[in-house]
């Protein structure tokens, strides 16, 4: 009974969320384009799939994932779990960063897993595979992005534990992205930049927020309001590096295979960066 009520409630709020989008699409269709879209009936059915799918997805997440994820984030950051008892954890006590090893591991694992399930990333990956004619594999792209999120979020929790300033990390990250951009093939650059924005939506954000909040509110000297933020920034920046890295590795492997097949001297091609710089 409660589940049904929850379903109805979520359906309603999904409709409210989607209303402005539908209004904009309809307005431009009728006022500016002035002719009905092709396959209108089929699209309507598809739109109902989207709404129903999103509603079930959200209700299911709230039922299954979020409570467990939040409890787990709270348990892993609890001083009792970390140190056996709480009294060590008084004002002035600075935790040693390695005490939080399980938190970094959990952040990486849950960041990876929620990114694989992220519907907007699935959408972008499907589209990229379609228009690249299969040169970019949807699953390869998703795994690369998920690895990026895993590394990023793990580093983000390390930052909260150590209390180091966020801008330093982000600026160094930007520099790495800029350097990679010079070496990356131009087909992958727009996709890599896009992948930063799509990783953090329905599934990932609530779990990360709980983790950030849990950490920032238990460690002395961290403010949940200020230090709790920033994990999403990490989760948006690192996939850009991961996707460009994935593409470079792919290029490198392909080149090696080609060189091997043509029987040329392998040593000549051993450093792809050197080669590209020349």
């Amino acid at each position, binding site marked *: 009974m409660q589940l049904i009520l929850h379903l109805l409630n979520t359906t309603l709020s999904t409709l409210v969320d989607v209303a402005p989008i539908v209004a904009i699409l309809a307005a431009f269709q009728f006022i500016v384009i002035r002719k009905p*879209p092709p396959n209108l009936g089929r699209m309507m059915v598809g739109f109902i799939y989207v709404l129903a799918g999103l509603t079930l*997805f959200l209700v299911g997440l709230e039922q299954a994932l979020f*409570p467990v994820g939040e409890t787990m984030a709270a348990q892993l950051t609890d001083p009792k779990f970390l140190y056996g008892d709480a009294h060590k954890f008084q004002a002035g006590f600075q935790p040693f960063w390695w005490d939080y090893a399980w938190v970094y591991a*959990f952040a990486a694992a849950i960041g990876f897993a929620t990114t694989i399930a992220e519907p907007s990333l699935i959408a972008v990956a499907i589209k990229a595979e379609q228009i690249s004619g299969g040169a970019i594999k949807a699953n390869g792209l998703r795994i690369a992005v998920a690895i990026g999120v895993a590394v990023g979020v793990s580093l983000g929790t390390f930052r909260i534990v150590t209390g180091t300033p966020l*801008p330093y990390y982000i600026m160094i990250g930007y520099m790495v992205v800029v350097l990679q951009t010079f070496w990356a093939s131009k087909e992958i650059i727009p996709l890599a930049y896009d992948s930063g924005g799509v990783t953090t939506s329905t599934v990932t954000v609530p779990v990360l927020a709980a983790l950030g909040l849990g950490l920032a509110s238990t460690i002395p000297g961290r403010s949940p309001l*200020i230090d709790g933020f920033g994990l999403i920034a990490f989760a948006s920046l690192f996939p850009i590096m991961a996707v460009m890295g994935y593409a470079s590795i792919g290029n490198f492997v392909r080149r090696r295979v080609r060189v091997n097949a043509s029987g040329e001297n392998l040593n000549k091609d051993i450093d792809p960066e050197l080669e590209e710089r020349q």
Partner: protein
Amino acid sequence: MLAGAFRDLLPIVLVIAFFQVAVVRQPFPDLGNVLIGFVLVVIGLALFIQGLETALFPIGEAMADALARKGSPVALFAFAFCLGFGTTVAEPALIAVTGEAAKIASAAGVIGADTDAMQSYAFQLRMTVALSVGFALVVGVLRILMGWPIQYLIIGGYLVVMALTQFAPEDIVGIAYDSGGVTTSTITVPLVTALGVGLASAIRGRNPIIDGFGLIAFASLSPMIFVLLFGILV
């Protein structure tokens, strides 16, 4: 279809099960509810992906194509702006983040501690982000029309973010950096992706993979700049 969705969700199940059993060593709370929820998530994801292919992608591409054929850049920019602004302004994640931001500003003494001041601050911040996403999509569409390489614009944006960070109050930096990630929701992303790809396919001389992607990158970068500016000015 369901099998695919199940495979997508398997990593979450494994991670949670491992940490629950091996690390935290607590019994699984409420296993029945969790299982029902998991079944709902699998069905929901399968339906969503089905709808993606039959509705969201075709709608986005058909509209991009029709607007490109009309040959009116103004209509195209207006559409891009409305799509960016309209999908962001009501985004629940954004509403949550701006609410938190108002608490921070109030704790830092930038605004008063009463609910009125906090609400109006949160509302202004939300409008700032929504405007910035609308603006970002207009710039992104302009880039597709002109065929500019994306990296100069994005790297330029990074430089602006770095410069503004030096002047912005420390409290707003975390929110500003996070605001880039929360603006792009599950329905917006497929529509915006299809818009870019559709435009790049409809315009001669544009390559869908090089010119079509990148709109989301603009939509994630520009809120950072606008929120930092907001922090400096307010």
